[in-house]
């Protein structure tokens, strides 16, 4: 018989989570539940200054009064916020100077993930700050960076060592009360990364962070703050994988980017959290607030490859405050089985001659739902603002869905806004053509999907693009045998 859509779907659904394992590292975990005591406890544990504790408490009080949002095109059982432990840190307080000092089991985990520090160290030009179970356990290349005055460390360390920078910028792009998840994050964030590029400095390497979630029942609340001072440039990579689990894992990160005058930030993400099994059970809930602020002539590019999570709710955004500033959003979102993704971006044009570009590629298989939600807002003072949006969807089978929700709000007549959308299916003819040239169906799908996603893949730094392609293949491949 023909390779029917039915079979295609089956094949796609038989993919098991590749990184389906978790390690047994002793850890120091808080009791479940959330109240002021816990918030203070987290702050104490991290030996934070009082202003930080106060900031967290403010956020907690706001959060208590807030309702979980309902409007995204996703359906899931809401997490019980009192049934989550808000802090977990590997027991052996890590301040390793060499790999020998690192818990061997942790190293084993890294090996399974294919990101052993050994390898990473060799990967010239990539400094890795690995966040595992909420505490940074390894930072490399720090010295090279320090010579240029670049600060790249965990946010906890930054709070200790560079309080003036943290105090000045934290919450300025994503305020505590911004939304339900951002407020929660502000109250309980466990760790994350901090990066500061001084005036006029071009960061000589890609800064890379691998995020992992590794404790049953611990929510992850990462906080990232990247500041590019005037005329500086940085490319920042964030990637992650997660072990499989029965219980849903909540992840509510906040990422704030600040590009001062003439600065440029490239922020790339490859995300591969456990999407849940074939019945849709388990998997990570990913509710993320990512936002960047551009001052005059500044530029921020978000590039993301999303293949994981049971539920993804994520809109990396740019506030184009300064005149002539530029915001870009390039995204590939893959959903399979019962995954639900509601992603997109917001481009807020405030300054004159501001420009934004949105390229979104959605790939849906199985019974998944893939939604693009984008807002382009042009303020009354934003003369000559321009936006170009392109949303392409690729469907595999008849049971999945792709949805596009473009919102456009313009208060200035000089705005030029273009929106294009396409929906296509992988055709049997395409697959047969590949088969005829000796390419089997699995590989053919990977090839077609990679082709479909190319405009976005091309935006990723080289080594990340390779990884992203692999991820795309893994998320859509039918596992052989």
């Amino acid at each position, binding site marked *: *018989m*023909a*390779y029917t859509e039915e079979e295609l779907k089956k094949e796609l659904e038989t993919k098991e989570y590749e990184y389906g394992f978790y390690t047994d590292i002793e850890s120091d975990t808080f009791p479940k539940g959330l109240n002021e005591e816990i918030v203070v406890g987290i702050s104490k544990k991290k030996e934070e200054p009082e202003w930080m504790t106060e900031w967290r408490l403010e956020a907690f009080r706001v959060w208590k009064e807030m309702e979980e949002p309902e409007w995204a095109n996703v359906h899931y059982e809401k997490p019980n916020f009192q049934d989550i432990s808000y802090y977990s840190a590997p027991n052996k307080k890590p301040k390793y100077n060499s790999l020998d000092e690192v818990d061997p089991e942790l190293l084993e985990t890294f090996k399974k993930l294919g990101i052993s520090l050994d390898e990473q160290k060799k990967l010239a030009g990539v400094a890795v700050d690995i966040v595992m179970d909420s505490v940074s356990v390894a930072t490399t290349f720090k010295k090279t960076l320090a010579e240029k005055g670049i600060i790249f460390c965990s946010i906890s360390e930054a709070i200790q060592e560079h309080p003036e920078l943290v105090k000045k910028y934290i919450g300025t792009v994503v305020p505590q009360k911004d939304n339900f998840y951002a407020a929660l994050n502000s109250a309980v964030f466990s760790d994350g990364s901090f990066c500061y590029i001084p005036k006029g400095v071009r960061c000589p390497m890609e800064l890379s962070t691998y995020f992992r979630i590794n404790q049953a029942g611990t929510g992850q609340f990462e906080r990232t703050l990247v500041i590019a001072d005037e005329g500086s440039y940085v490319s920042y990579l964030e990637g992650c994988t997660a072990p499989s689990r029965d219980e849903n894992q909540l992840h509510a990160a906040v990422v704030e980017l600040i590009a001062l005058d003439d600065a440029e930030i490239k922020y790339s993400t490859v995300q591969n959290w456990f999407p849940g099994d074939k019945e849709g059970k388990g998997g990570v809930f990913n509710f993320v607030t990512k936002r960047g602020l551009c001052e005059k002539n500044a530029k921020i590019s978000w590039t993301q490859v999303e293949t994981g999570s049971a539920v993804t709710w994520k809109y990396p955004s740019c506030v184009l405050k300064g005149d002539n500033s530029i915001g870009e959003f390039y995204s590939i979102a893959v959903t399979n089985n019962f995954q639900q993704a509601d992603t997109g971006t917001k481009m807020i044009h405030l300054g004159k001659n501001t420009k934004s570009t949105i390229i979104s590629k959605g790939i849906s298989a199985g019974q998944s739902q893939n939604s693009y939600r984008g807002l382009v807002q042009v303020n009354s003072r934003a003369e000559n603002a321009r936006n170009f949006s392109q949303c392409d969807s690729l469907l595999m089978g008849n049971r999945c869905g792709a949805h596009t929700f473009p919102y456009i709000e313009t208060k200035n007549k000089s705005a030029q806004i273009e929106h294009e959308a396409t929906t296509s299916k992988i*055709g*049997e*003819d*395409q697959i*047969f*053509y*590949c*088969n*005829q*040239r*000796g*390419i*089997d*169906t699995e*590989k053919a799908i990977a*090839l*077609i999907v*990679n*082709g*479909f*996603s*190319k*405009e976005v893949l091309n935006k990723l730094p080289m080594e990340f693009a390779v990884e992203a392609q692999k991820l795309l293949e893994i998320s859509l491949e039918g596992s052989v045998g």
Partner: protein
Amino acid sequence: MLEIKDLHASIEDKKILKGINLEVNPGEVHAIMGPNGSGKSTLASVIAGKEEFEIKKGSISLDGEDLEELAPEERAHNGIFMSFQYPVEIPGVSVTNFIKTAINESRKARGLEDMPANEMLKLIREKSELLEIDRKFLSRSLNEGFSGGEKKRNEIFQMAMMEPKLAILDETDSGLDIDALRIVANGVNKLRSKDNAIIVITHYQRLLEYIVPDYVHVLHDGKIVKSGSKELALELEEKGYDWLKQEAVL
């Protein structure tokens, strides 16, 4: 090499091939002609293994191996190549990337390593020169926005790259201008050897002046109603198919 015996094939219970017999030996060129809808492309697709078509009766074998059980990609690995009448577009996948994948997948099936990049490059250079293809063309998305003629030339480029044992060219001449026809035919001829064979499906005698067939077959309503030498093609050009249809009915 290729042996087709009493082949019956249908799609959704519609009978299309109704008892085809054909034997192709190494070194031979066979031309298949016949009116629109007679089943020429279907025959090509069935040989290549398109699974929509169901083989109801008869057999196809290549070098003594029954093809029915083999997936299309396995047939390709065994050296079957089909130049499509309507090549499909694959957006975002460059000609180079596609052919590289095709070659390496076939090598993998034979237990070989990927072809080293410099060797691949050399091969691409050589074959694109043979078919007078601009190198810039090779970086474009496969068949996307290609003109009819460009698509056909690209099919033959792929054939040249893959060096198949049995090539089936389905109306490769349609859409080619006179110069392109000469270039493509010349390319095909360069690939002829005593070890491989070609089946040329065409409506026009002109292609057969360049790629001279050893045999010409006429397909009508799912059956080969007449076989002959290259002169048969001339006769068809002159008289059309009606006289053969009459004969077939009788």
